[in-house]
């Protein structure tokens, strides 16, 4: 089964998962006052967030409104 058929373009799903990972990393890092917490936030959280947001923006171009789940169902 294609991911698209699940009702949401794959890029949005991956973007969402990356953003969840980034936000979770940020939340966990804020519980700890230590250089490692800063590095975890900056390297892992920052990367997940940046890639997630960029993938979302790219997916807006990759999947124009015609491929919206609602329209896919019409097809």
């Amino acid at each position, binding site marked *: 089964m294609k991911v698209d058929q699940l009702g949401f373009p794959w890029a949005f799903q991956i973007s969402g998962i990356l953003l969840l990972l980034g*936000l979770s990393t940020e939340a966990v890092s*804020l519980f700890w006052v230590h*250089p490692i917490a800063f590095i975890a936030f900056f390297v892992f959280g920052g990367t997940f967030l940046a890639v997630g947001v960029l993938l979302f*923006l790219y997916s807006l171009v990759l999947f124009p409104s015609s491929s919206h789940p609602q329209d896919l169902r019409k097809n």
Partner: protein
Amino acid sequence: MPSPLGLLFILLGTTIVLLVVILVRPSLTATIGGKVLAFLAFCALPVLCGVWGLSEHFERSKQTNFCLSCHIMEPYGRSLYVDDVNHIPAAHFQNHRIPVDEACYTCHTNYAMYGTVGVKLHGLRHVYVEYLGTPMNPIHLYEPFNNRECLHCHAGARSFENEIHTPMMDQLKSNQLSCVSSGCHDTVHNIDSLNKFKQWRATE
């Protein structure tokens, strides 16, 4: 009213919930309102969370306990409690001449344009050396201590601009004469001789 950190956690939680809701129910994005919600959840709020989190981490990295959380800095933390007025960091720390919560940062930052960014990059280098490299033994500053950091607070103070300091002010400002290594105020952290001194303990 929640603290700024509390507000950040609320924002993080809200963003995570919105993301999960949209991922589980993608049909929500069929309407204009849903698209706006998706843009908020996938772009605007994560960017806001990231910037806010970075700012929070930057503020935390100024804290004394942040600097002293590395094992190698432990004796420098103890040097703040030396019961001797000639120890410059201890005298500043114990008499609250500097904010005790940001004691290391206050003296070791760079009071110049983009100085904070510079010291944060130094901080990243510290972390790299601590975990992936070989720390200096004994550790020392990357560059000689700049009088500018002392003069940031002391310049203009009545107790400082006296018959001792005023004649040498030009040399102090140009770093030709160091505050801490020219024989005037040269008892700084001196971690090798910490055990010779009594440790001061603040009364609760």
